[in-house]
């Protein structure tokens, strides 16, 4: 079977043990370009995994293990040389200060990475200052904020207001989601978008970066 197809299958089938051997074989024996292995093998496999999740063939545990396999493969590819992995743009993710609920943010991260975005995951309980500082240093195009609790969702407004007050040359878009967030609330705080689930979060990022949503 085509080695690139095997790499793709390896991701889709969660075969974390085989991914390194296959990638080495693709590079050393088949002499295939790193970017091709990434795009047609690793990323293609992850796209299939997401499609399987979308049509309920897979649940979240499968998606996580597929992403683990993908990350192992990407790490190995990077050790062979600079990977122009077609990474689209940087997306910074954080759960706002006062909140520690992370599962939603983690699933969004998996989906975004699988779609080729360079994700900077700050984690949970992150201050406005740290979010904005890191977004500037990393030149992030999008900031994705999550909040499960209503007592902490006002932190999202603080991030947006602070960014707006800074008159930045390149202002990152700020998108929001989480258990305590609704579309109405996102409009109230003037967020650039709201995602009710991880799949839509990826679509929202794509639309914003293509200028299709404002």
């Amino acid at each position, binding site marked *: 079977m085509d080695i690139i197809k095997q790499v793709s299958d390896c991701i889709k089938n*969660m075969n974390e043990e085989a991914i390194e051997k296959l990638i080495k074989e693709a590079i050393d024996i088949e002499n295939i370009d790193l970017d091709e292995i990434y795009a047609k093998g690793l990323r293609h496999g992850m796209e299939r995994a997401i499609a399987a999740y979308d049509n309920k063939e897979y649940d*979240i545990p499968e998606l996580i293990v597929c992403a683990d396999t993908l990350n192992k493969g990407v790490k190995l590819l990077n050790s062979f040389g600079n990977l122009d992995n077609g990474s689209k743009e940087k997306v910074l993710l954080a759960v706002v200060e006062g909140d*520690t609920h992370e599962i939603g943010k983690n699933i969004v991260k998996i989906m975004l990475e699988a779609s080729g975005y360079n994700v900077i995951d700050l984690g949970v*309980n992150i201050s406005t200052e740290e979010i904005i500082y890191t977004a500037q240093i990393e030149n992030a195009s999008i900031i994705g904020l999550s909040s499960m609790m*209503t007592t*902490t969702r006002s932190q999202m407004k603080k991030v947006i207001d602070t960014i707006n007050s800074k008159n930045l040359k390149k202002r990152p878009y700020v998108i929001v989601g989480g258990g*305590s967030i609704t579309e109405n609330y996102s409009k109230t705080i003037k967020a650039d978008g709201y995602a009710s689930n991880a799949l839509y979060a990826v679509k929202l990022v794509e639309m914003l970066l293509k200028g299709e949503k404002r």
Partner: protein
Amino acid sequence: MTLLEYINSEKRGFFLSDMGTNGLFLTGYKAQEVYNDPYKQLELAQKMNETFETDFIYSLCDGAIFCETLGLDLLKPDYDFPSVLNHPITDIEILKTYKIPNPYESGRMPVNLKSLRLIADNIDKPLFVSIQGPFTLAVQLAGATHLLRNIIRNPEYVRKLLEFTTETVRRYAVAVNKSGAKYISIAEPATVTLGHERFEKIIVSNLNKIYKDLNCWKALHICGDTSEFLDLMLTCNINALSLDQIMDYGEVMKRIPENIVLLGNLDPLELLYNLTPEKIKAETKKLLKKMKKYDNYLCAFGCNCMNDTPVKNLQAAIETGRMLDEEIENYGC
């Protein structure tokens, strides 16, 4: 008396108004002050009972009691639930170093039991207590992503961890029951990350191990879209089921046996938090009208309410939910 008999014991609607940490603003106490003082718990329960005339009584919900007792680091906001900052139980060897808490000795558990006893003895209404379920506790102990990954990678670790959490919850729930709780609801929100097959394999039997030892009204609450495993939830040994506001109760009710109470599902955010009392009354009446033909429906919130939801909004929903049957009958919509 069964829960079903209780909610049909008068010719009016009954209302379960478990709402979260809203009572703190009524007393001015911070969450930790209340958690650590049974008399403040009683005072808060009395204040809630006066402010929101309803058919059950509650203590301040304590979702982090297990994690606190097991020594996890917690973030402790003044006016909201505590939440977990670290997830230390990442493998079987670490799990072996933890001991299942004794509800009568460990950490703050005995204080909680005293609080419940005080409330049960001083307010003449069925005491409702919500307790975190074993899978949701396991998510907190191991971290969500780590636990979900290991359902595939290391099922033995997950099995052992769930054994530990099930026994932890079971012992505490039995003690809560003995302390005067008339109605115990197990909250398992993290299970929505699982599909039908896994829910059947690793959730149902663990929940039933807890329910079988409880001598009170027993309920299961899961947030999110539960339509995929509603049938499995009904195989649990429960008297009542509580679902999220996103569920269409007109459709859900068709799948609920007559002897199981379905409670819910007023929307805490879009309805109770965002709208006026008049609109809340109208929406509540619409739901009641839709459910009126079912004796096994109990009006309640779909999930915890925002802690700063206006009191008048909550009162509007509760007053409407407790209207006389004939008032609902005559409501034209």
